[in-house]
């Protein structure tokens, strides 16, 4: 598990060193999101956000839980992993001050506007992408809490305006997260190659 050790297959440069907290967050986040999305689409199918009962449904290959009750069981179990992982990651980047030097900053915005250095620009695009997903994940959590407990958290439903708006926002977080994961991977590949991708998952 030592990330600085050279890989057995190639004798190329050692993988970049990644902080354990960042690696753990990536693993748990990806696992929890697969479960949340699979079970979420299972729940979606019982009454599609778009079209109601007659609406288009997701095919079984994307689903988790078997039926509505099972989908809900998975969703409200995986929510703890998803939410606590996000919470502890927030605490972690705050304590380690990663939020100050690892996320999008004023420098990046300046580079995106003025820099002639394409590498520097790619780097900033990547930071923009992975910084932008944090509010999306938080929005998924907030809208989900509003739908899970609309009587106790009625202010969340009010915040989104209507029940349908709440459902749409919660659902839209699925394609948003998937598109983000692709962009994040592609930009990561562009900035640091396969070695960078490997380093975060080892």
């Amino acid at each position: 598990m030592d990330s600085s050790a050279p890989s057995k297959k190639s004798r190329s440069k050692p993988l970049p060193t990644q902080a354990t907290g960042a690696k753990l967050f990536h693993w748990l986040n990806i696992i929890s999101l697969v479960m949340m999305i699979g079970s979420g689409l299972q729940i979606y199918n019982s009454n599609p956000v778009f079209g109601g009962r007659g609406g288009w449904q997701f095919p079984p290959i994307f689903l988790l839980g078997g039926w509505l009750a099972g989908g809900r069981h998975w969703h409200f179990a995986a929510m703890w992993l998803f939410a606590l992982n996000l919470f502890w990651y927030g605490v972690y980047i705050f304590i380690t001050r990663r939020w100050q030097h690892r996320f999008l900053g004023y420098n990046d915005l300046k580079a995106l506007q003025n820099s002639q250095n394409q590498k520097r620009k790619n780097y900033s695009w990547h930071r923009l992408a992975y910084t932008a997903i944090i509010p999306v994940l938080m929005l998924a959590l907030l809208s989900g809490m509003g739908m899970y407990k609309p009587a106790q958290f009625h202010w969340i439903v009010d915040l989104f305006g209507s029940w349908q708006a709440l459902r749409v926002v919660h659902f839209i977080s699925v394609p948003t997260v998937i598109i983000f994961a692709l962009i994040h991977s592609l930009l990561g590949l562009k900035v640091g190659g396969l070695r960078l991708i490997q380093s975060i998952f080892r």
Partner: protein
Amino acid sequence: MFPDSPRLWQRRQFLQLSGLSSIGLLLGGCGLVGSDIIGKSFEPLNQSVEALLLNPQKLVPEFPASAIEPNALIINTFDITPDIDVKAFRLIIDGEVNRPLNLSLEQLQIMPLSVMTIRHVCVEGWAAIVQWGGVRLRDLVALAQPKANARYIYFKSADGYYESWDMPSALHPQTLMVYQKNGNPLSVENGAPLRVASPIKLGYKQSKWVTRITLVSELLPEKGYWEDQGYEWFGGL
């Protein structure tokens, strides 16, 4: 969970193959078996959080009558729509009470009328703003003089449907036994002559065609029609 596949695969190959979609596929494959285990493992935790979130005295904000969505309430029934003779109808309240009751609809309608406009939320994901009118369940329970050991409440319906609730939710001031919907007498499809309505529980907890309310000290093995099929028991909102 994966009965025979792991031995055939080396771990490395397995990890290489499992991208997002194949993890989803494997989880989907064991979903039905696994969801029972997952449900049973996490329901106690989720239930204690739900009970903790519930403030039995706090009113859920209501909507103005103009917000009513007359066509949004979908009719869901597990089996038949029972044909009840309103004149012969009786609501029985029994179990752990000192004064069992046997009430006609006229007697219920003499009691103070509570009207509330709330969001009815279905487990399927849809919701409808509905105005309900009826008697507070807490008033009925008080009339029956519950014993100190009464901790749960069962609703039995004319169509064979059955449900059980925790007492704090049942005694919530917005948990009503209703005979009016959107200002009109309740229709048979919506549960006439008498049904449960509450903003703090999912739709499947809100039994229609209720004929018997029984207070108990412990939950029976049968917790509710959908719960016994695998749905969550508390069903709080």
